[in-house]
């Protein structure tokens, strides 16, 4: 079995480890911050650049590059917002950090704030985590009491505070500009980029950094070992570790941390997660949260990829794909937020897509016509299908609707809501075309009870 390498999740589920500051300090907590505030902020930004760290919130954008884009000349305050919205279906890593190791996050936030001369940070946490919000508030107060947060931190003259801000059940608050609108007390309608790149015109029209919870925990680790050493973990271009959240039809669902790209889909699902349920076989997997394009077991992907200076042929089945950002992108999907959703042969793909479409149509913010109407239309079609009125032409109709959304919307939700439909139809088109013939048959055990 491939070895996990737990860096961010080192203490998660460790017996006796608690989320209070005494326990964190006993385990060497805040030592990295103490050293970091003695360094030059630019050096810390450089370490993050050297580390190659890519954002863990979904897009995989290099963190150092993002920090480099921040407008530092405007004279306006710079804000840091921690994206703790964690609402992409299939993703559940940030909640464990928040609940079990909140001080790791706070230390990562404070190092990032110091590096970027941020005086005020907000943790935007989804409304459905009321206990998580309380844990964070208590942890921040403990950190204030110990002078790791607040005025004149560790006697350096540097001051910075953190406040927790709760969302209220809307997925679009995870999108960074929607999040900013929400934090300003408005509907979470995403902003048009350009001009509203957060790095220039973010919160209160000031330069703003938005980073995911896990990303900021990695920053703490980078500050500890140095960017150079961190960049040796994982694979080139996909450095560090990654937490894979596995859910659905495997024997041992859960969260597993590996060096990025050092585990294949097959190793993860068969060896680490115990394989399919007894008497079942894997049918499909969504590798990076429910908006990532679905993969079909039995399919093959061929092409050339760069390893070092060489171009090397690859010919992979789903099980052979290394789980990193680039390899998953090469086969037409994405690593996204790390949520791996597994479906076995009991699942009917029309019903699974109907479930996904219900989610995205519910969550569209409604600003752009293609997204608002398209996501609803796709949901109406798949709902009608599972309610027993499927037609042969539905597959083509669904594809037609989905194809008209991406690239025509304000934010990437347009892509997120069309990719499931596009990929389900591309890979399981026959099931959709034939659904009207089979609908009266008894459903397989474990099928989704959608009707």
């Amino acid at each position, binding site marked *: 079995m491939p070895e996990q390498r737990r860096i961010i999740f080192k203490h998660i589920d460790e017996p006796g480890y608690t989320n209070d500051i005494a326990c964190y300090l006993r385990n060497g907590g805040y030592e990295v911050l103490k050293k970091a505030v003695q360094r030059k902020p630019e050096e810390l930004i450089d370490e993050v650049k050297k580390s190659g760290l890519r954002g863990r919130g979904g897009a995989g954008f290099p963190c150092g590059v993002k920090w480099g884009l921040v407008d530092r000349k405007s004279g306006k305050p710079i804000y840091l917002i921690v994206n703790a919205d964690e609402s992409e279906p299939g993703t559940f890593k940030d909640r464990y950090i928040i609940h079990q190791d909140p001080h790791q996050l706070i230390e990562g936030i404070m190092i990032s704030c110091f590096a970027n001369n941020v005086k005020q940070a907000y943790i935007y946490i989804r409304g459905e985590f009321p206990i998580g919000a309380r844990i964070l508030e208590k942890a921040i107060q403990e950190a204030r009491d110990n002078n790791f947060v607040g005025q004149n931190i560790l006697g350096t003259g540097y001051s910075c505070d953190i406040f927790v801000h709760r969302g209220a059940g809307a997925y679009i608050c995870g999108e960074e500009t929607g999040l900013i609108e929400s934090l300003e007390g408005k509907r979470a309608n995403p902003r048009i980029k350009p001009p509203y790149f957060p790095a220039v015109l973010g919160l209160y029209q000031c330069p703003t950094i938005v980073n995911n919870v896990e990303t900021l925990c990695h920053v703490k680790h980078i500050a500890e070992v140095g960017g150079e050493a961190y960049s040796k973990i994982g694979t080139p271009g996909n450095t560090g570790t990654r937490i894979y959240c596995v859910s659905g039809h495997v024997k041992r669902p859960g969260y597993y941390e590996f060096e990025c790209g050092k585990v294949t889909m097959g190793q993860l699902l068969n060896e680490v997660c115990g394989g399919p349920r007894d008497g079942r076989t894997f049918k499909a997997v969504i590798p990076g949260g429910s908006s990532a394009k679905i993969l079909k077991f039995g399919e093959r992907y061929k092409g050339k990829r760069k390893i070092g200076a060489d171009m090397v042929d690859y010919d992979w089945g789903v099980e052979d794909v290394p789980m990193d950002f680039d390899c998953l992108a090469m086969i037409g999907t994405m690593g996204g937020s790390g949520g791996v959703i597994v479906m076995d042969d009991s699942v009917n793909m029309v019903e699974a897509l109907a479930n996904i479409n219900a989610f995205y149509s519910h969550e569209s*913010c409604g600003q752009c016509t293609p997204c608002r109407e398209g996501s609803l239309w796709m949901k109406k079609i798949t709902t009608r299908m599972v309610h027993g009125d499927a037609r042969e032409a539905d597959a083509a109709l669904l594809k037609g609707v989905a194809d008209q959304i991406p690239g025509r919307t304000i934010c990437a939700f347009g892509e997120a809501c069309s990719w499931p439909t596009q990929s389900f139809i591309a890979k399981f088109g026959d099931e959709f075309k034939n659904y009207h013939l089979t609908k009266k048959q008894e459903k397989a055990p474990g099928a989704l009870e959608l009707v």
Partner: protein
Amino acid sequence: MNLKPETFARIDEVITHYPVKRSATLPLLHLIQEDVGFISDEAIEWIAAKLELQPINVYEVVTFYPMFRRKPIGRRHVKVCRTLSCALNGGYKVCDRFKEEFKTELGQVSPDGEVTVEFVECLASCGTGPVVMIDDDLHENVTEQKVTELSAKIRAEAKK
């Protein structure tokens, strides 16, 4: 507004977290909903005045975010995740069982006033699905058997 003194105190404190008062809209709505149970017209107008906004600015927020409600719910709030990973492991059955236990329909207050059962989207605990949130507490790997136990517990706690 008729609120508990500690709610007023927390409202005044939370406003200081932001350089622009309007940012306190969501926190104030949460605090008032936690105190009173729902968001009334009076609450909307009160928040608007408090944050120097127009009532419509608050109203449009209330109607955008699913967690804010305009009318009271049952004594306990049962939220069942309906999203894919939970559904793959029986989330819909779990929801049906709760409805049967309390003889109620989605979004309604049950006839005994005990619960409001709702479907919600992914609660970020997909690996231990199906999951159910009862008020603030998350229950994982919920089976039909567990629904029976949880329902009995809700009824027992109501009698106290």
